[in-house]
Every structure is written in structure tokens, then in C-alpha cells.
């Protein structure tokens, strides 16, 4: 397999946290390649650093050292995710990455549709927004219909079930057509039935070519992934 097939590459990633006076190492040396169109699952115990790794891969956080790079297309130049300036990382999150969190993280004052539109509002000027609002809105509604929430557009997150909230979060993460979907235990807060629906959604996305990196501690979910890595003692193992 050539390097051109790799969407994201991380090498020698190190990350620690400070807890008062003590230093807690989380990632000691992580190397990772995410292939284009791949559904990669990362397993690990609670506190093993799965979410931290996901945040680093998605330019949401910065490692202490190492290098993360992304190649948008087979003919595209390699772009450094880390090191990069804050402005560059903001731009990457806006264009290339989509995040789904365990606790949904929807904006409570916004409706379902507005939460999804928020992804497109970020980085769009007022003039640009009013110029292309119709098309953006149609895309968002189509996506929400695809995740089965076409009838709940005007509802607030507080009026939805956990599974529905997570589907809104998926729609929000996908509305800008990201290169990489990063899902942080998306079923961790759901009952079995809702979790299964989410996994079905992920499979559908994967079948349609979406590259996905998902972290979980649920062994059963790993069966549907193309590849699985285990994060243990701060390093990834196959």
C-alpha cells in the first residue's frame, strides 16, 4: 500500500497532563496511519488516552512532540496538522474533520437544524451565508432526513432522546463533508437499541466511502471495523 492511500499519519506522538505537581504521561509514543475510506477502531481501557489521541488527530489539541500530517487527496500535498499554527488548526477542523462526542455536545439554545447549520456558519461570512443559505439549508435538512430526524428540525436538544441527539451530532459532523470523521465513544452513553442504530449509521457512512476513526472500550463493536488498534501503556498495538 502506498503513502498516497494514507489520509492521516501520526508519528511519535507524546502527550502528558499535569495534575497539580505531578506529571501524568498519557501517550508515550504513538504511531498511526489512517487509510482513505477506512473504518479504524481504537480500543482501550478507560483513561488509556483514547479520547486524547482522537483530539490530537483532529487538531483539537496539540501533542508535546511528534508529527501529524494529512494528505487531502492522492494528488494533494501533505499538510502538517502538528506542528501548525492555531489559525491553521482552526481551518483544518472547519474543513477536514468532523467530531462526534460521547456526550453529544449540542448547543442547547439551538434547534436541531440550527445545531447542524452551525458547522457551516463557522467560517462563513455574513454575506456568504445569506448568499448560499438556501443550498446549505437544503443539505442540512437532507442529512437530518438521512439520519431519521426530518420531522424534528425545530426541536431543541432537550426534547430529543439520547440516540436522537447523537444522530444530530452525526449530522453536524458530516454536513461539511469532512475527510475524516472522528467518533469518541458515540454509543457509550446510549442504550443497546440506540447504540445499534448509531453503529448502523456508521456502517452506512463507511460503505459510502467515509473515513472513520472511532474509539471505544466496547469489544463487541470492533467486529464491524476494517482494522482495530489497542491503546495500551501510551502506545498503539495491533
Amino acid at each position, binding site marked *: 500500500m502506498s503513502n498516497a492511500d494514507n489520509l492521516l499519519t501520526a508519528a511519535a506522538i507524546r502527550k502528558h497532563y499535569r495534575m497539580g505537581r505531578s506529571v501524568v504521561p498519557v501517550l508515550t509514543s504513538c504511531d498511526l496511519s489512517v487509510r482513505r475510506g477506512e473504518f479504524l477502531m481504537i480500543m482501550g481501557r478507560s483513561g488509556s488516552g483514547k479520547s486524547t489521541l482522537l*483530539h490530537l488527530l*483532529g487538531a*483539537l*489539541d496539540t501533542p508535546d512532540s511528534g508529527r501529524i500530517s494529512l494528505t487531502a487527496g492522492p494528488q494533494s500535498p501533505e499538510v502538517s496538522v502538528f506542528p501548525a499554527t*492555531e*489559525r491553521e488548526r*482552526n*481551518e*483544518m*477542523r*472547519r*474543513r477536514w474533520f468532523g*467530531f462526534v*462526542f460521547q456526550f453529544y*455536545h*449540542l*448547543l*442547547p*439554545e*439551538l434547534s436541531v437544524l*440550527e445545531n447542524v447549520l*452551525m*458547522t457551516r*456558519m*463557522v*467560517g*462563513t*461570512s*455574513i454575506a*456568504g*451565508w445569506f448568499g448560499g443559505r438556501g443550498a446549505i439549508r437544503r443539505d442540512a435538512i437532507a442529512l437530518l432526513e438521512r439520519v431519521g430526524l426530518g420531522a424534528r428540525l425545530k426541536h431543541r436538544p432537550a426534547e430529543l432522546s439520547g440516540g436522537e441527539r447523537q444522530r444530530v451530532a452525526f449530522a*453536524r459532523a458530516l454536513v461539511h463533508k469532512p475527510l475524516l470523521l472522528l467518533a469518541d465513544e458515540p454509543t457509550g452513553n446510549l442504550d443497546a437499541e440506540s447504540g445499534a442504530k448509531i453503529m448502523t449509521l456508521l456502517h452506512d457512512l463507511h460503505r459510502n466511502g467515509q473515513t472513520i476513526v472511532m474509539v471505544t472500550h466496547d469489544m463487541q463493536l470492533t467486529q464491524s471495523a476494517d482494522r482495530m488498534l489497542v491503546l495500551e501503556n501510551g502506545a498503539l498495538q495491533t
Partner: protein
Amino acid sequence: MYKLFLTLRYLFARRIAYFAIAAVMLCTAMIVIVNSVMGGFLDKIKAKARGLLGDIVVNNNSARGFPLYGEFITDISKWPEIEAAAPVIFSYGLLSFQDTAILNTVQVNGIDLEKTYRINAFKQSLFYEKHYPGSTTLGVQQQPKLGFDPERSPVSSDSPGEMWVTLPAELLDLLAKARAAGIEDRETVDSGVNVALRKAGLPTLPGLFEVNIEGATDDGSGADGSVGRAGYFGDPREGIIIGRDLVAFREKDGRYRRYMQRGRMTILTLLPISDGGSVDAPIKVPLRYADDSRTGIYEIDSKTIYCDFALLQRLLLMDEGERADDSGKIPARCSQIQIKIKPGVDANKLAERLEQHYRSYLEKDLPDVREFERNLLSGIRVQTWEESQAAYIAPVEKERFLVTILFAIISLVAAVLVMCILYMIVLQKTRDIGIVKSLGGSSLGVAAIFIGYGAAIGIVGAALGGTLGYYFVIYINEIQEFLIWIRPEWQVWDRSVYSFDEIPNTVRTIDFAIIVVCGILLAILGSLAAAWRAARMQPVEALRYE
């Protein structure tokens, strides 16, 4: 786009923001009210001062006055910049009304009425001149009295002796002219005569007149057999114009209730000052109350009377006279010259030229101008009306500035409140901030949400406060009336203390705009700390926040 969207959404979704809006609103309203009342107070003082003085005044700040005013007025009247000029004499005296115990200390102004009409707004302050145009004079006059109207039947058949009254024909003609010009009396309480006339649907007779029931003579003997006839009666005397508050009470509704009849005899007692500076024997002079003046400044309207310039000059020994040693003439003197200039003329430059011109008399060889007169001339100062009132206006200006600054400092409380509320909202919205950043929102963008939030609070608060303040100022007198109606002791504006009979109720556009903009800036200032904290949040930490 997300910044504007979230700013507006938070503004209406977070009820706690209403407290910040209320704080900005109240502070803006407070400063608009304070600034407008103080500013209006200042404007009124300036307008009244100008209305009473003309554009330029010549003074020497001496109770003895100064000479050569006649020559000066003759000279400058030829200047193209000059519209009109008139001499004035100021003195003090005692005023009493015949057959009453009333005795007032008054400032006596000697004026040339016709010239004064051309120079300042004095004519507009006169009551009888307004309703009977052309009837007011400071010259020799008798008392106009009401008589029974021969053309009307008795008031009722039950009281055949009770007849309708009427004014002398000349006054009725003048009243008809005023009525034709749309002038109605809305500033005085109806006299008993007018109550009856109004009740009968007949036109009222503005002012208060004596009914000729005792006779045509001042002693009431009725010896000439004119009882019951309208006309002019009594001894002919020079007239005086009296400050309104000396001849009428002011009711709570703002209207005046006259208690002195027009043409009533008064006694003015004056104390002439000799050339040596000593007070000569008091002079008592009977004068007829010709009209009353209301400038709107209580200090003036309750203490000032106006009589003929030449008369006062003569009574105060300021007129031209022969020197005791027959060595020549003593030139006539006045206390002040008021000058009206033509529109567009630079008053400051003209004042300088006028002063130079007056001082040039010192260089001329004028045989009647001796050392004493030269000393009076050397003190001549020509000032614009603003300069002449600077000692009075400047403290009010400073007071206004000081009060506005003090209230502005108090208004910083609003900024602190906005800061606290927005800081609290930032803490509550920590996770939202993380979400926005995870979607690619920049630190600057997140800061902009909260600065925009502060600005939105400022705009809404300042707009509401500006509106509240504006209408409070416009209706401030009605509000005071309402408070007095609830409890009389809640009267906050005492006209005898504040000089004006109404609380100033004008809002200056430029001041209003500055205050509203400052209100918005104040709220933005209050949002900076919250915006700073929001911008500094790391997205991962914000998402983990609980």
C-alpha cells in the same frame, strides 16, 4: 456568521442578560436626564440673558454710570453692523401700592421702551402689550377702568342692579386686533369679571381692571359724576412695568392670579447717589402700573420694575446739568448701553472696535468731560452678552460638567454588572465555547461573540435608556405635577430657588447621541474580561468542563 447568530441567540435566550440591559438602560436614562436638565438650565439662562441684554453691552461696573452715551449711540448708529442701541439705568428702590401694606425692595431699570423693543425680547414678556397691543407706555397715563355696558341688559332679571362691564373703546379695539391675530390668554386665572363673561359665553377681558363704581378720581369721591362709565381716570402719572411675580400669585397649575389692577397707583422710593458717592435724600414718585413683565427668570420677575429712562435719569440726578460753579455742563450718564447687531456680524470683533471707539473719547478735547467723568469713562468695557454673563454662566457650565462626570462614574457600576453577568455566562457556556471551537471557531471569533453580546446589551440598553430618558425629560414637569398631586412635599423644583418656573425639558441631540454611544461603549468595556476568558479557553478543556 456564527458570531452574529450566537450573539443574538444568547441575547434573547439568556434572561440574565435582561439585568445587564436594565443596568445600561437605567444608567443611560439617568445621564440623559441629568445632562438634559442641567444643559436645559444653562440654555435657558443663556437665552434669557441674551433676550434681556441684546447682543453687546457697554458697562463700566459703577453705580455712577458713565457719560457720553448719547454721542456714542449717535456715532455707532451710522455703523453698518449696528441694528439699534439704547441706554439703560440700573438702580434700587422701594415699591409700594397705594392703599396697600405691600412694600417691596426692587431693582429699578430705566429704559427707553421703544428702543428696548428693537434690541431685545422684552416686548414678548409683557402681558397687556400682548393682549392690548400698543397700549403699554411708560409715559404719562391714567388708569383704565371698567364701566357698565350700556348695550347689554342686566346679568339676570333677578338682579337688575348687576350689569355687564366693558373696557374703554380704545382698549376693546386693541383687544380685537390681538384676538384676530390668534392671541388668547392661557397664562392667567380668570378674574371674577372674566368668570362671569365666560359663563355667559361672552368674550373675556384679559388682565385685571378696576370697575368704575367709586368714581373717576383717585380718592374715590366720584365728584365728576362719571361713576359706571368705562374710561381713563385718575391723576395722569408716568407708567411703570412691574415684574409679574410682584403683582400676581402663581397657582400650582402654572397660571397667574393677578391681585393688582392695571393702572393702579404705586409709589417708588429712590435713593439718588451724589457725585461724592453719598446717598442723597430719598425721592418718592407716584407711578401707574402700566404692564407686567414675565421673563421666566424668577429672580428678575420678582424683583425688577422698569420705568422711563429719562425719568429715572432725572430722579437719580444722572441727567445733564449745570456745574455748581457755572463752569460748564455735567454730561448725562447711563449705567449700560445695550446694542443689537445685524445678523452675521462677528460680535467679538465688533465689541473690540466699540470699546476702542468709546475709549477714543478720552483722547478728544471735550470741555465738559472733567476728571470725574474721565475716571468713569476709563472703566468702560464692551462685551458680548456671553462675556457679560460669564461670571453667572461659567459656574453653571462647570456644575453641569461635574454632575455629568459624577453620574458617568456612578454608571461604571453598569459596566461592572455587565462584566459580572457576561463572565457568569461565559462560565455557564464553557462547553458551548468548546463545541464552537471544535467546529473550527477561532479564539478571536469566540471573543467576538461575547464582545458582540456586550455591544448588543449596550445597544438595546442604551436605546431603551435613551428613549426612557428622552421622554422623562420631555414630560419632567408633568411628572413633577403628578408627584405633587400625590404628596405636595414631593415638589423637587422650587421656582424661587432655581430661577425658572419650569424644569428645563429640552434634550440636546449631540449630547443625547454622545451619551447613547458611551452607554454602548460601557457595555462593550464590561464584556472584555468575559471575552478574554472565552478566547483563552482550550477547546478540549472546555468540552471536559462540568
